[in-house]
């Protein structure tokens, strides 16, 4: 069984896992980071979105062994100290979540957008989120939250 060394939420981690293990399985089952969710089996829903070296990736679509040496950030690693990350705070402020299942993926995806585009328009947010499904909110408040969170992340506060 290959030994995998990577950084997860700033901590060096070593995982013994099979070649076929998906990154999301390594995170959920080997590291107990259950904030990253699995909502489908065809890379469509985006509930499993994490950051790999700073970019959003669907962790159900990547083998764990492909993450050798990479820096992974999951939803658990976003907030520092006791405070919510600005994107998390924006989701709460704008009621951008209901059941919470798609939320980790939405937030991780939104952070990547905000890193690329400090002030995304409504249309840009809606296009960006094409890989993230939500069944609860109708996206209305998610779009508001992402725009506000992007502003806050980029010093708009």
């Amino acid at each position, binding site marked *: 069984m290959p030994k995998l060394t990577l950084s997860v939420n700033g901590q060096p981690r070593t995982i013994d896992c*099979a070649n*076929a293990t998906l990154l999301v399985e390594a995170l*959920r*089952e080997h590291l107990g*980071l*259950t*904030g*990253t*969710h*699995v*909502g*489908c*089996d*065809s890379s*469509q*829903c985006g*509930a499993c979105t994490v950051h790999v070296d700073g970019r959003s990736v669907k962790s159900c679509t990547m083998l764990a062994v492909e993450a050798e040496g990479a820096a992974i950030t*999951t*939803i*658990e690693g*976003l*907030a520092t100290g006791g405070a*919510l990350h600005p994107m*998390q705070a924006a*989701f*709460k*402020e704008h*009621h951008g*979540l*209901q*059941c*919470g*299942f*798609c*939320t*980790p993926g939405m*937030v991780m995806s939104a952070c990547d957008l905000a890193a690329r585009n400090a002030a995304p328009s*409504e*249309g840009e*947010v*809606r*296009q960006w*989120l*094409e890989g*993230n*499904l*939500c*069944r*609860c*909110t*109708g*996206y*209305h*408040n*998610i*779009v508001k939250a992402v725009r506000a969170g992007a502003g806050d992340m980029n010093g708009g506060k």
Partner: protein
Amino acid sequence: MSNAQGIGAAVKRKEDRRFLVGKGQYTDDVTLPNQSYAVFVRSPYGHAKVNGVDAKAALAAPGVLAVLTGADVAADGLGGIPCGWLVKSKDGSPMVEPPHPALAQGKVRHVGDPVAMVIASTKAAAKAAAALVEVDYEPLPAVGLLANAIVPGAPQVWDEAPGNVCFDWHIGDPATTDAAFAKAAHVVELDLVNNRVAPNPMEPRAANGNFDGANDQYTLYTTSQNPHLTRLLLAAFTLKVPEHKLRVIAPDVGGGFGSKIFHYAEELLVLWASRRVGRPVKWTSDRMEAFQTDAHGRDHISNAKLALDASGKFLGLRVHTYAAMGAYLSTFAPAVPTYLYATLLSGPYDFPAIYAEVKAIFTNTVAVDAYRGAGRPEATYLLERLVEKAARQLGMDRVELRRKNLIRADQFPYQTQVALQYDIGDYQATLDLALKEANYAGYAARAAASQANGKLRGFGMSTYIEACGIAPSALVGALGARAGLYEAANVRVHPTGSVTVFTGTHSHGQGHETTFAQLIADRLGVSTDQVEVVHGDTDRIPFGMGTYGSRSASVGGSAIVKALDKIVDKGKKIAAHLLEASVADIEFKDGQYRVVGTDRVKAFGEVAFAAYVPHNYPIETVEPGLEESAFYDPKNFTFPGGTHLVEVEIDPDTGVVEVASVTIADDVGVIINPMIVDGQAHGGLAQGIGQALLEEAVYDAEGQLTNGTYMGYCMPRAADLPNFKVGNHVTACTHNPLGIKGVGEVGAIGVPPAVINAVLDALAPLGVTDISMPATPEKVWRAIQAAKAGKGA
């Protein structure tokens, strides 16, 4: 509002933090010591004989603990999955209620029907071994489509249900309806299909069963909207162990939309398998499995006729509907196309006569049961398509035809011809509000602008009513329900004045931890931070019927209010003692007990403390402690209603429909948290627009589900939807203590016909008169081409 966090305040959600930092606890997140994993071997056929199951190779595979089949289920005496509602046919005979074994016995009847259960020490091992189970299937003629199942000579899903008829039911008065049609100046007729959709909560179903042999105790973690009902059905029908030995926990649940109401075989099987293998057994559905095994929604074929007088006044309505049940009767399936559909056919209109017939039909598909709206979207779609067609056929204005027939505010309580009595509403007010907010007066200019851009613009509307908080128990019992439909609550005030509320409702996105905390804050004058709301655990909560049918606030909230009333009353007795006054002279307001007309007060916290430290206390007449329970059984349904307006813009070259605007005005009764209420409306709208434009679970004639993945089933994405304009006009429900009606389903109920009416309005100039849901670009483009060809001919 007596409290800035009380009723009416847009308090931010208490539960958000754990979801936002990845600390939600969903069923699949629960991994128990010595956990094992189950994977199911499921039928690839719509209908087949199972001549044998050979598990030898699977049993020999690494890590495999057991392979269980229908024969094991029978040998261990597990009960079949029961149906929770008995509907009788016109002739008084009970519906055909076929057996539903947890694992197939002899035959499979839909794709996804479970045949064997493989349990192994890892999920990967279980999956690999499941592929080694050899099932000897002998395919049988199957009927995957409702339209085919009702044809004479159709393949039979069940031998005991000739013609695939489960029941043949009716409501209303055929004679007065015939008379209404006999004198009608106009009759408008419409044939309609209400498309089958898959609920698709983002969290797939999961179940983790653990049998503790030392204590003879079973624990089930499950993705359920109503853990007590699941426990009741497990105890009484399927697992057959008493409730006190059975704990059902529905932790954080990632959406339900109806599909997680029902008792599913997997819940029983993981508990049973845990007893067999001596380890906890976890099963988690993948998405393809979810499409094949979660109960679907809708799937109706209807014919409707509307009789009008010369002025456009409605005289009568006649409806005939075929409703698919699927292969097995799911928990509430028979109630959906009857008591939640046909009873709603009067809509918000004053109808002197209605007669509706409903035939429930078996098909070789997964079950059809309640999905957001459950029956009410089907009724609304039928009625609002029909009314729109009437306006067009009679050359009347669509708004004025509706306005003419809406029940007036002074007609309440209003007795419909289909059993329901609406307590209150103001449909003209919501109509006016929606038209104003949508700037209906400016529509012509917007249509002209679209036309100038080469687009076709259409305006569509629906005025609708729905029924929530299905009740009272005695009535639903008389109608065939095999459960009560009350709700339970327990309010525990702690010695230092903080409060824990135990509710029998279940939150899977609705925000109960905030909404109910606001209720406590409002009544007791405490901060929402001092309130914890507990749900989803049968060992912690006295009892409950769960969350569905937009019942949580109106029924569950009312139970909490009843318990709070008892708390406040008991506190008065304690306060009277402490203040040396008569109980009759004590009032409770803003968190303080006061001797009326004086400045002598005791804070709520002081009274709570005295209740638990009863040194100076009326101990002869009042027990120590401050904790009360209540059950609330509603007197009637609640009746939200409103108007939904949609504008679409269609590209005639591609058939792509863009939803340009959605404006709704609802009356959902008194609102506790407007932020959460708006969010509920948004979510319902997305599902309603999804059904109208994108979504359909497509079976083929042989019962293959042809699009059961997210690559094939078109879920609404962010770019498919606009922002929503949501307005409210409140009339308070007259028969519950809070005046609440319910908001969970309004979007999914009101908006689909408004979308399709808008599409047809846009296409009308081309001569298109009908289109079915979902109005996909292909369907719209073909309709445009056919209309053009027809005109040219």
